[in-house]
């Protein structure tokens, strides 16, 4: 732009087809909302005002596909997860962005207030007795774990993460952006290395589509969803067109007129 008189442009927005220029403009706007959600999360109330929540925003077809596939992999690790995680993997693919919020302190630096939430005791023994510690310092170098999350965690820190997630979702609600928090997305993200310093991660999916992609889900959602239906449509329509072919340059079939033989 060399002269101010040239100021002016058009920006067309539409959600279809996915990843078209008009859809990318829309996604870029969602990203602004996601960034504001992250800042809202960072201003949430924390016990003692201690900073502890880290965030990461992930977006793009390949990046989201990787998270969805990790969730599908996890789905088969636990019968209680299978359907849930498979359904939610679809939601990851349909989202505009993923926000990961994690707590950096929950497994190593507890609140040390004897609050009672983790173990129902008036000291922090429940946490410390299950950790490798000296002088209350937690040795976290052994990161092997039979479970996806290496517990126990300081529940007061987890509660603070909840405040952060709540504030992010509140900002989303105020901006009329669809968002929901997921354990499945968080676990997958954590295993992929997002929020690398965190002991527990929650994934928030964000979208600004005509239909909220996180509600009103049909059964077998991993098999019956917009992407799959469209793929099948592409498959189905081609074949009848192919098998009834003719040379349209010379003749096009017309509906028979009334009384015509």
């Amino acid at each position, binding site marked *: 732009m060399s002269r101010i008189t040239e100021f002016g442009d058009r920006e067309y927005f539409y959600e279809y087809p996915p990843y078209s220029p008009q859809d990318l403009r829309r996604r870029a706007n969602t990203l602004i909302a996601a960034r504001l959600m992250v800042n809202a999360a960072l201003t949430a109330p924390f016990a003692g005002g201690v900073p502890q929540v880290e965030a990461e925003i992930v977006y793009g077809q390949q990046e989201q596909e990787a998270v969805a596939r990790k969730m599908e992999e996890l789905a088969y690790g*636990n019968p209680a997860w299978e359907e849930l995680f498979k359904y939610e993997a679809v939601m990851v693919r349909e989202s505009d962005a993923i926000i990961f919020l994690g707590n950096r302190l929950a497994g190593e630096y507890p609140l040390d*207030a004897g609050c009672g939430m983790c173990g*129902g005791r008036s000291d922090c023994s*429940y946490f410390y007795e299950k950790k490798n510690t000296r002088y209350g310092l937690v040795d976290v170098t052994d990161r092997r774990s039979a479970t996806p999350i290496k*517990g126990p965690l300081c529940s007061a820190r987890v509660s603070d*993460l909840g405040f952060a*997630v709540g504030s992010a*979702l509140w900002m989303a609600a105020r901006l009329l952006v669809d968002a929901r928090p997921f*354990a499945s997305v968080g676990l997958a993200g954590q295993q992929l290395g997002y929020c690398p310093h965190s002991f527990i991660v929650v994934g928030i999916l964000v979208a600004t589509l005509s239909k909220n992609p996180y509600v009103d889900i049909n059964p077998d959602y991993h098999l019956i969803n917009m992407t799959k239906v469209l793929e099948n449509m592409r498959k189905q329509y081609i074949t009848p067109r192919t098998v009834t072919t003719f040379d349209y340059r010379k003749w096009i079939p017309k509906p028979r007129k009334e009384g015509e033989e």
Partner: protein
Amino acid sequence: MARYDGSQLAHDYLLTVAAHMIQAAYKAPQVTGRLKLQAEVITGEDLVPIIEVMGVLAEASQFVKWDYVTFKENYEAGHPPVLVLLGADTTVSEMSWNCGACGFSSCGEFNRYARENRGMGQVAGGPSCNWKVLDLAIACDWACATAWHHNVDNRVQGSSGGAAALLGYLPGCSSILGIPIGPCREMVWYSRENMNRKFSYEDHIRTMFHTIPTHFLAFPGGGRPLFKATSRWWEEPHFLGVGSSPEAMEKLYGLLEKLAEVVDKYSGAVAARYRQKQPGKEE
């Protein structure tokens, strides 16, 4: 036509704000979708037992004292805060996610342990499923955000929530968070005017000495922790020491006895209310 006193009107409106907060808490998104949230609002003279319990806890804890004084003085000045209690039983996991965050390898093992070892900490109960704790926190955050959007000063507290739990409010909840709202003025729960002149300069500095001692240490290479306790610290050297404190423990046991007495005084009446009728319908 009617005329209203603005200050009174604002104060009365706190109850409406509390209702909005609770609605937001119930509407808040959840990760588990299984949190059984309970909510209650405590106003006026019903705050007295909670303030009294906090008064005992205040003797052992500075942050409780801070909340206790703010509650008590505002109550005595005739403009009590309205206390929103949000709670849930976080000691059960029905999800079978076996995520491990609690420290057990399966939800089944956790549930068995939690059933047999349920207990109370200094502000809440446990053992807890961390995903339930997280959901309760999201709900609580939405309640606070709602108060904020109504321009009402508020703060999430373990102190008032814990005091309410000790008295038997919200039976069945392992974890209760208290959110006082109001009274209606610029700042109540932040930069607390009520705390002016409650702690002397020396009190503040002593707190800093006790809580961030390394900040005041001299050259550490000598191996002896020389503490810079005065402006001319080199003239009268202080040294940092570490040790147990039987006096502090004795004081704590004394407070627990006192606490049991106060709880005993009120808990019967609190429990009776839940037997009689729904608290929401109470006059």
